[in-house]
């Protein structure tokens, strides 16, 4: 008995092990990334464009969920309104392309801002504007906690949704097409495989930033804000600015994913802003395993696979999604990653 106890307490003192590529968790993580990369590569080589685009879809939804996971999983902020940033990112890509297409101005006063079909410009704009929006929404919402926070983030996203719906300039409820995919220097973004590589890089970057950041001082403070904000305040660090910054970064990641997602679909509509979108992003985070670096990836693969396979069999596939989700929430709290890679240990 004593021996067992000393063994369990000795376990966390081996800091070299977690993250090593050869343990179970490491293998699962490498496997997921390899699957996401190799499957579309094979499809590309065999000429099945549909599957390459499907992989891009998984990748971008996963990236949006990586952003949300930073808020929910790492920061303990249950945002039910991340569609606002996903959709805003999408609209920035769409609106910018729209003005670039007919050489009109986005704003003529106080300074003239033309559209742009350069992805780099669009990404920068999406990151900045989503950050600003999240700063405003977060500043108000983070004054509240618990259910209030959930409902307020939901309500603000609905505000964006109804605004897009009733603002006629950019298509209102019909949405806006992006006739020609926005461009990058040197590469042809219209090629599905090229676009997949761009999306995949975005996902890897978002995951790397999350991972690195959560190990830093900021991550330590955010973790403490989630686990016990009294302890954080007692140490002399106000939880509010820590949470707000995390919320903003989370929105920036989701917004960038949204800009890419609009380019993938060649179309943007208020659906990207709807509360179903917020709910689905949340579902992906939870299906994958909340607060796990690879959770959003696992969740997105599972979600899009269900959508594609079940959706091919029945138009009522969301009924089954609902049942699966209900069972996962009630009985399998740790998600796919918990099931595949074991419980997470904080050391």
């Amino acid at each position, binding site marked *: 008995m004593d021996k067992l106890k000393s063994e*369990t*307490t000795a376990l*966390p*003192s081996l*800091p070299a092990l977690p993250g090593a590529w050869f343990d179970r968790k490491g293998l699962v993580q490498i496997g997921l990334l390899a699957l996401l990369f190799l499957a579309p590569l094979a499809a590309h080589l065999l000429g099945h464009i549909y599957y390459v685009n499907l992989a891009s879809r998984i990748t971008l939804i996963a990236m949006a969920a990586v952003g949300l996971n930073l808020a929910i999983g790492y920061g303990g902020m249950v945002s039910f309104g991340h569609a606002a940033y996903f959709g805003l990112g999408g609209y920035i890509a769409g609106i910018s392309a729209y003005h670039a297409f007919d050489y009109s101005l986005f704003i003529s006063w106080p300074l003239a801002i033309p559209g742009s079909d350069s992805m780099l410009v669009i990404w920068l704009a999406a990151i900045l504007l989503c950050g600003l929006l999240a700063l405003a929404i977060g500043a108000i919402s983070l004054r509240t906690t618990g259910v209030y926070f959930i409902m307020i983030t939901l309500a603000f996203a609905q505000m964006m949704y109804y605004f897009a719906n009733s603002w006629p300039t950019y298509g209102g409820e019909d949405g806006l097409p992006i006739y020609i995919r926005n461009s990058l220097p040197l590469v042809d973004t219209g090629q599905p495989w090229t676009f997949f590589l761009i999306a995949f890089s975005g996902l890897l970057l978002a995951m790397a930033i999350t991972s*690195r*950041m959560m*190990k*830093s*001082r*900021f*991550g*330590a*403070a955010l*973790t*403490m804000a989630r*686990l*016990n904000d*009294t*302890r*954080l*305040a*007692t*140490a*002399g*660090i*106000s*939880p509010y600015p*820590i949470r707000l*910054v995390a919320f903003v970064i989370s929105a920036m990641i989701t917004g960038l994913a949204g800009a890419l997602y609009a380019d993938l679909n060649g179309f943007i509509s208020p659906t990207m802003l709807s509360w179903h979108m917020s709910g689905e992003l949340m579902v992906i985070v939870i299906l994958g395993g909340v607060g796990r670096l690879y959770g959003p990836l696992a969740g997105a693969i599972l979600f899009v696979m269900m959508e594609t396979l079940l959706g091919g069999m029945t138009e009522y596939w969301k009924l089954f999604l609902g049942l699966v989700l209900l069972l996962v929430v009630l009985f399998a709290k740790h998600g796919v990653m918990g099931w595949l890679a074991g419980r997470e240990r*904080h*050391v």
Partner: protein
Amino acid sequence: MSEVVLTLNQLQKRFGALQATRDVSLELKQGEIHALIGPNGAGKSTLIGQIAGNLKPDAGSVHLAGQEITALSVAQRARLGLGRSFQVSSLAEPLSVVRNVMIAVQALQGHSFRFWKPVHRDESLLGPAREALERMQLGHRADTPVSELSHGERRQVEVACALALKPRALLLDEPMAGLGPEGTAHLTELLEKLKQEVPILLIEHDMDAVFRLADRISVLVAGSVIAQGDSAEIRRNPDVREAYLGD
């Protein structure tokens, strides 16, 4: 005489019809343990709240090292050097002991908006955290998750967290609560050594510990301080005897 570190000056707090704090004044001096005792419902928690910054007094002031802190937040007070421990453990259970203490070191250094350098091999954080743990004789438990600690060890970690802030004053809220006789004796010994470095305002139920540790004692009854003095004076005071031993 020695320097006054923490001063409460005529604090008042009212909740509706209930006067929870009535004209409370007290001082904590360098090198001493000042104990605050009182029967249940005397208003100790309300008073602690006003000292720590969770509650704002209706009137009166709180000074720390000569600076008025009455209107400051919990975090701001901590940055000025007020360390505290809680009656109910406020540690992050899943994290290791040293990670709990490190957050205090990080706060002391004032840099939480750093996004790149990993903390788990940052000696400028680990070193002081380990040192604070050593002072509470917990060095050997540094890498253990808090959830696996005993009740007494958690109390010690709480104090270590407060110590890591290099505080000017410590506010300890019933640190002995729930400890066995052995744990109480151990912690009493540690606090006795500690008071040389940091003065301690000790809120405590365990009278043996209070009488052994405290240089001065204030007795709170129904929101007012009814007596102040050293152990002998408090033991002799008829009002205190009445408040504690019944009508």
